[in-house]
């Protein structure tokens, strides 16, 4: 007999079902009204603070008891909602003042492959695109990003990457996610884009071997190009210490005007002004299965996606005006 554990009948502040185990009256201890019902009490300006405390306590309780669920890739929406997203939100809203356009091009449900340009030494552009979709898209979609294998080798980073919904950049994982109807993010430039010198800013690098197009075709998912402006200036890389990088096992070791000269202070990114634009989707279903056998179709599609992103980047660069806008 599988024990179906009774869950609390109440709803959390977010309007979701409370996941705490229920007591005899069908409510968990947290939601059982205390002797003096707090709802009728006027808490004055402290009310919202207490609501926040209640939500934080609910979260902590779930974490301590292991009362949360992750999907087969390790995605932990509870952790993203309460820890990861709140940490990134100030960067998005206040530090880089991100403006997001074209969200209507991302479907509300079903699979799609979001393909973007990659820059800025550390993959903050990917994180900001994901946060834009989570916070500002009407369906609050989770972007499941394909990350480099280095991310899954590093302690602390590895589990965090998985819990935020990312997985290894390999055809198997991408196909599986798209077949499950997820929104998948891919940055085909990889390290070549991330670790390019500042003087080459906003020039898109080679798009790998175009494996992402093949996966989109195979799963019949639309491709949504996304152009990010602003990430190039967060850590302007003036030199790359290749030998040191090789020694440490990193793809590059950046030298910026402030790093490593100012030590940890140099790791603070510059507050450039950001624009994220999602471009109209490129449908792949009407190309048919025979397109998969034709390498020319794959090359053309790859170039089409790359050109779309490059042009949008140039247009938004002009629109942005000054770097720190």
């Amino acid at each position, binding site marked *: 007999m*599988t*024990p179906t*554990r009774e869950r609390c009948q109440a709803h959390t502040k977010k309007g979701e079902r409370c996941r*705490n*185990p229920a007591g005899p009256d069908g409510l*968990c*201890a*947290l939601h*059982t009204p*205390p002797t003096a019902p*707090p709802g009728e*009490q*006027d*808490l*004055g*300006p*402290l*009310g919202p*603070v*207490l609501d926040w*405390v*209640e939500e934080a*306590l*609910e979260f*902590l*309780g779930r*974490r*301590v*008891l*292991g009362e*949360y*669920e*992750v*999907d*087969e*890739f*390790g995605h*932990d929406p509870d952790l993203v909602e309460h820890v990861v997203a709140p940490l990134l939100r100030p960067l998005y809203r206040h530090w880089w003042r991100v403006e997001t356009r074209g969200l209507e091009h991302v479907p509300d449900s079903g699979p799609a492959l979001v393909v973007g340009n990659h820059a800025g030494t550390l993959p903050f552009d990917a994180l900001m695109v994901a946060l834009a979709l989570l916070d500002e898209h009407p369906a609050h979609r989770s972007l499941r990003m394909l990350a480099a*294998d280095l991310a*899954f*080798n*590093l*302690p*602390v*980073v*590895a*589990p965090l990457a*998985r*819990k935020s919904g990312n*997985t*290894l950049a*390999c055809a*198997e*994982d991408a196909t*599986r996610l798209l077949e499950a109807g997820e929104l998948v993010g891919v940055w085909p430039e990889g390290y070549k884009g991330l670790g390019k010198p500042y003087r080459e800013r906003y020039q898109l690098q080679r798009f790998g071997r175009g494996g992402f197009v093949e996966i989109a075709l195979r799963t019949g998912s639309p491709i949504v190009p996304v152009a990010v402006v602003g990430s190039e200036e967060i850590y302007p890389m003036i030199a790359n210490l290749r030998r040191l990088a090789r020694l440490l096992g990193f793809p590059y070791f950046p030298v910026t005007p402030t790093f490593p000269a100012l030590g940890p202070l140099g790791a603070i990114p510059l507050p450039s002004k950001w624009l994220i634009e999602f471009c109209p989707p490129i449908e792949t279903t009407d190309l048919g299965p025979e397109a998969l056998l034709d390498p020319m179709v794959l090359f053309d599609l790859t170039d089409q996606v790359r050109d779309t992103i490059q042009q949008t980047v140039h247009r938004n660069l002009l629109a942005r005006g000054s770097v720190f806008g």
Partner: protein
Amino acid sequence: MGRRLLVTGAARTTGRRLVGVLAEEPEVERVVAVDDLEPQEPFPAKVEHLAVDLRSPALVRTVQSAGIDTCVHLGITAEPRAAGGRVTMKERNVLGTMQLLAAAYHAPDLRRLVLKSTTAVYGAAAGDPAVWTESMSHGSPRHGFGKDAIEVEDYVRSFHRRRPDVAVTVLRLANQVGPTVDNPLTRYFELPVCPTVLGFDPRLQFLHEEDTAAVLLRSILGPAPAGTFNVAGDGVVLLSQAIRIAGKPPLPIPEPLVNRVAEMVGRTVDFSPEQVRFLQYGRVADTSAAADQLGFIPKWSSLHAFEDFAATRLRKLVTEEQVTRVEHDVLGLLRRTAGWLARELPR
């Protein structure tokens, strides 16, 4: 004529349980239980215990003369210490299987072969795909139980080529848990603190012991689809989550020291280096083939299976009541304070 079965590794937890269930099935005429160990509780009357090693000639005679129609091979072990060292373990696993298959080749009535294998054949590494399907080419583990299982599976496949009339079912089982299971992983969770690799939190899958018995029973007595199937409870559990459900404090250990600690812990838990890597990178297998072709859907999800194991076997340090009570008390106190402030301050 009823079914005549031969079960290897029959005295261990899984085997003993399965033999008990099989003996109660009306269509089963005879069960030969092979194991050189004595079972913890004696076998039922219908079962005849053949107390020999897999490498013994008595086994060959029995397989050939007793009219065995189904051979169930559970006799591969993941525990080097219990087997008498890694070398003996390998010998028992691989050579034992070879002997069994050599005998089975000459068994005229044999129609079905069921092998209990493991998802450990996929290994555990940072660069693995998130979810393994049966057909994916895996980065073969270079030693330990996983390597044994790969070799055993290879021999079984080559047996299938030589005896195509025998339906061969290979079940790759995820880590088993449950009220009576005793394996390195259950002993790990029974430690007073659970050592983990600092900065890693692998995804794990569990299979409840009831489901282990159910899937074996289905492969033995149900319609027989030949093939290889991953078997695991639905969903995944993170190691950190499992440790919290177990109510134990985790003990994160920096990667360079992990092997030394594992050696120390290994004495009580019977841990091999590959299991340490498993606790660093984890592993998840796709179970849709078992559902579609074998028609097996586990009753217990990974999470429920583990919760059942934790509830029946472990003493929790932190309980749900404590946590909810603390939450309740803190919130009540804050509410009262806030209410008082709201009333008093305006004056």
